[in-house]
């Protein structure tokens, strides 16, 4: 089995937890994706767009953790 190692981000001697890095990166990706989501009418596809967007964020976050 492949063991996943998480690298800590070091800012000026302060260690930032890997999860925080992933969470912020995921948020940035969602923000960048927003115009695209709007163009395809993402909000109109679901009865509860808020939950759909939250799920999308969780999916992006998990993908980031899996891939990097």
């Amino acid at each position, binding site marked *: 089995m492949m063991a996943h190692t998480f690298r800590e981000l070091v800012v000026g001697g302060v260690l930032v937890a890997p999860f925080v890095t992933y969470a912020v990166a995921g948020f940035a990706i969602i923000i960048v*994706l927003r115009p695209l989501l*709007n163009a395809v009418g993402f909000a109109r596809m679901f009865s509860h*767009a808020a939950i759909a*967007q*939250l799920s999308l964020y969780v999916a992006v976050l998990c993908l980031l953790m899996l891939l990097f």
Partner: protein
Amino acid sequence: MVATTAQQPFILARIPASSWSFAVRVWLATILALFVSFWLQLEAPATAAVTVGVLAEPTRGQALDKAGFRLMATIAGVTAAITITGLFSQLRDLMLAACAVWLGVCVFAARLLDGYRAYAAVLAGYTVAIIATQQIDNPQHVFQAGMERGAAIAVGIMSMALANAFLFAPERHSWLAAQLAALHRRVRAYASATFQREEDNSAVFLPLVREIVGLRPEIGSAALESSSGSIRSAAARNVAVGLLAQLQAARVIKPVPARSVDRQDYAPDVAAETSAWKTRELRRLDDDVRQELLALRSIKWPSRLRRAPLYLSYRNAAESGLRAALWFALAATFFVWTGWSAASASLSFLASIAALGAITPNPRGFTVVALFGAPISVALAGLLEFILLDGTDAFPVLALALAPFTIGSALLATSHNPMWSALGRINLFAIPTMLAPSNPETYNPQTFLFTSLFFVASIAILLVAQTLIPPISDEKQRMRLLAAARRELQEADNKMGADEATFREASRIGQFLSAGGAQDGRALADMLACLDQSAMIRLCNAKLIQVTDSALAPLAHQASAALATRNTATLRIIARVLREKAPHKASIEAETAACLVATSNAFDQDGLDSAQEAR
């Protein structure tokens, strides 16, 4: 989508279901925040619960917006705290002075902003007091304390966001669209009423101005809500700016008063032409707002983006900031003199009450409410800690025991009565602060007693400081706003679009009303006269710019100069020339002429009114 608002709301115990669901959401988010904080073994779980209390806003967009500002302000505040501690770590007096200056700067910034931005500015101010002042005896802990606070706030924000998403909190944008449509109906009703009768109705006009300007901070809240949020927010801002332009035009483009019709130079055909132009102008503005509302509903980027600038009163803001810094400095001097052991905690309470009060219209009134509210919060927190919980260490019991307090406070916060609502809001974050849940909970009556005593004492000391150095008086603020309005009327600048400038001036009227302007009838009339005149001048200038015919350009210049000096005779002559040169009745020259005539009538009318008043 909006149809649901028309249904009869479900009411339980005389409280609408929406308030119940809001209160339950807040309670669940508080439990989640506490649970996650305990699980992550954070040092300050109470801050997470307090964050939920602070973010208890009725819609998802508002909560997210406030959360973003709270997070950014905390980062700014922690950075400032670390800097101040680094610079003055062994120098108590200098450090307190630096905290006072920072608080003053933040209050200054807050007075130039509105809504959650203003809240963020004062939060950045008192975060320094919470972190740097509380850790004044062990500066090596400042960084740690800042990180703990930031982590707890992040947990609180995530809990509130999750609770709002899964429990279907209402969306801000659907409310916003309905609110703007309703305002549009009211503006139209006002316009037709004013157009039919010549007297102006300030009792209808002023609340409309206040409501439209008051929507400004909430329009930004729609941006974070969904992927189309930024479009909705931009479209809603356009609607608000357009609505104010329409409202203002309806006020100034009144029918000609009967008294001035018998003037020599006022031929009947000119009157008919001016009246036709007024109708066209009002219809154009109404169509404009209708288009913007359509863009808001169909979620399309508006063709042009309008800004909604606020009037910035630097002198009022600077004075408020200076006074806030002085209150803190005075209280700090007192605490240093007494040498009490818990003075640092007291000072941080004091800073937060002073800062939060500074963004309300009446800072001392806020302190008085806090002084009455604090003992109630203390009593409730004591009841919760020592009678209901009384030594228990099970999380489910804590969650259940919190229910009546959190739900009750949240229900109070939704009340229409401002007093009850303020009390509910205070309890939402004061009860978790006093209870200070930790894992394991200590149940130390002595600590509780001291914290409560210093909490109430700090508010009392702030009240004393605010009595010695009173907050900036309403009258002074009003005089400054009026002076600024008069000054700007003299030196017209065309850097801003006409509608944007109208919005900015309307926001000044809003500030004037917040400073008790409704009671000061004479100054209010002056403010409105300035607003009307500058709106007319802007309208004419906008028309004059469009007169591009090179032969008429010198005439347009002359007209601008005559506008600046209120030379109505020249304006009428220029209007006559323009009318003669106009190729047809709907041409820009004819429109400009009609606008100039209407403006000179308005100027003459103002002169007549003030002459009558002087007599």
